[in-house]
């Protein structure tokens, strides 16, 4: 089962640039929440604050609180590595490990954290690939094909399988389908539909139709601020804020 995320007064900087301002948002467990907004509005930065990836950039800073379930992400005793094991991330451009086979890619999160049991690994790899709807396409070449030799859509599903293998509670997806063709995109959207039952999903997208298709909740960001957050249906039919309406109807961005 997934967990909810509570964000309180979240601010983030790149050096002197204030990228994300005072975000207050509650993300519901086991649902998909879409983050939409024009380019540069801070949606990716916000999401990367949730799994403490933002701080890996030199001179980056985060203030505020994020709670995932009962855990304070930025709490004093919490290690970033811990959080990232519980929060999976899929990036915009697929990034499978090129020196590893499909099998090793999926198992990477486990093997490189010391998990040894071979029988279990086989099981987990198969299950993750099935969840990512990739199993049938690669089951005969698991250890022979390198992760980087798959097609773009397959690579992204591989990355999803890899993220799923460590059994996170939350899945963050940063424009996961923007680099893919429509068929692969469709497959990934189906995936998100299925994954919702077990995981809490946050998906950044600049494709409003995609948000409408897969997410129950949508948040609209503009210039680093959260403008509106509500059920997807409400955002797209009857937005409360004029800026949201302008964005939805294509007047800018």
């Amino acid at each position: 089962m997934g967990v909810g995320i509570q964000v309180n007064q979240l601010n983030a900087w790149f050096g002197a640039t204030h990228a994300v301002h005072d975000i207050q948002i509650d993300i519901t467990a086991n649902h998909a929440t879409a983050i939409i907004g024009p380019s540069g509005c801070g949606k990716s930065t916000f999401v990367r604050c949730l799994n403490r990836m933002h701080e890996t950039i030199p001179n980056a800073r985060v203030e505020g609180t994020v709670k995932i379930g009962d855990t304070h992400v930025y709490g004093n005793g919490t290690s970033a590595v811990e959080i990232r094991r519980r929060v999976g991330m899929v990036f915009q451009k697929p990034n499978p490990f090129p020196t590893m086979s499909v099998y090793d890619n999926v198992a990477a999160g486990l093997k490189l954290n010391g998990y040894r049991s071979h029988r279990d690994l086989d099981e987990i790899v198969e299950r993750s690939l099935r969840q990512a709807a990739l199993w049938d396409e690669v089951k005969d070449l698991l250890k022979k094909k390198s992760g980087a030799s798959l097609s773009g859509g397959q690579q992204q599903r591989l990355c999803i399988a890899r993220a799923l293998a460590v059994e996170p509670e939350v899945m963050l997806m940063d424009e996961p389908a923007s680099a893919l063709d429509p068929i692969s995109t469709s497959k990934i959207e189906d995936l998100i539909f299925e994954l919702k039952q077990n995981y809490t999903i946050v998906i950044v997208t600049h494709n409003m139709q995609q948000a409408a298709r897969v997410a129950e909740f949508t948040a609209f960001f503009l210039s680093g601020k959260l403008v509106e957050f509500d059920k997807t249906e409400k955002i797209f039919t009857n937005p409360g804020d004029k800026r949201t309406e302008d964005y939805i109807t294509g007047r800018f961005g």
Partner: protein
Amino acid sequence: MVGLAAGATLMVLVPLVAIFGYLVYKGIGSLNWNFLTQIPKPVGETGGGMANAIVGSGMILLIASLIGVPMGIGTGIYLAEFGKKRFGYLIRFTADVLNGVPSIVIGIVAWSLVVVYQKHFSALAGGVALGIMMVPIISRSTEEMLLMVPQSLREAAWGLGIPQWRTTLSITLRTASSGVITAVMLSFARVAGETAPLLFTTLGNKFWNFNMNQETAALPLQIYVYAQSPYDDWHRQAWAGALILIILIVISMSLVRMAASRGVFKGGN
């Protein structure tokens, strides 16, 4: 003007061809099984070989790589993954300085540190000298190779909750591995032919020696001594030894080139 430039190029090619040509011409006749398996005969007698020098060189290179490779790769990793602005520049600059120190000076330092301390000459001292020389070469290339690994791979690993040290070793370094191996082989080729640092550290030896705490024969040293000797037979052997040395170097350089052209990543797109 094209003529002048082309002429200059030709003039530069002449010594290259001449040197390689002479090496083969003068050395090939003496390259036989005896030469490769025997140790030198007593002064004045013809025959004998440089077997002990070849093995000795191998021993010294082994000691050198035990020192130079870990320090070099470690420095490269630090500069690529952890090096903050000013300190990183300082280390890089110091490595470049070290690169430019004449090898005879490194020999003096190894003499002072090891030979004087131990009160005798040894293969160890020679290995220390060569190891010091390997560090900046390996470090520079390792850093370059690691920086070529895209940041997205590191982020993918971090996103999975893989700790920094594991990411650096199992993902970043592994992806750059063929490049790093290339760098190590290059450093081998560079120090394998060095004579000066061995002159008063390893000294040379007419016999077999497998003890790293004793004087040992080395291929470049042997060539140096034989070339300057008054014996024709030793001159002949010097050419043969030189031919072996250059063959070994050319082989490792070709391997380097082949690995480099195959690309840095294994199993790429």
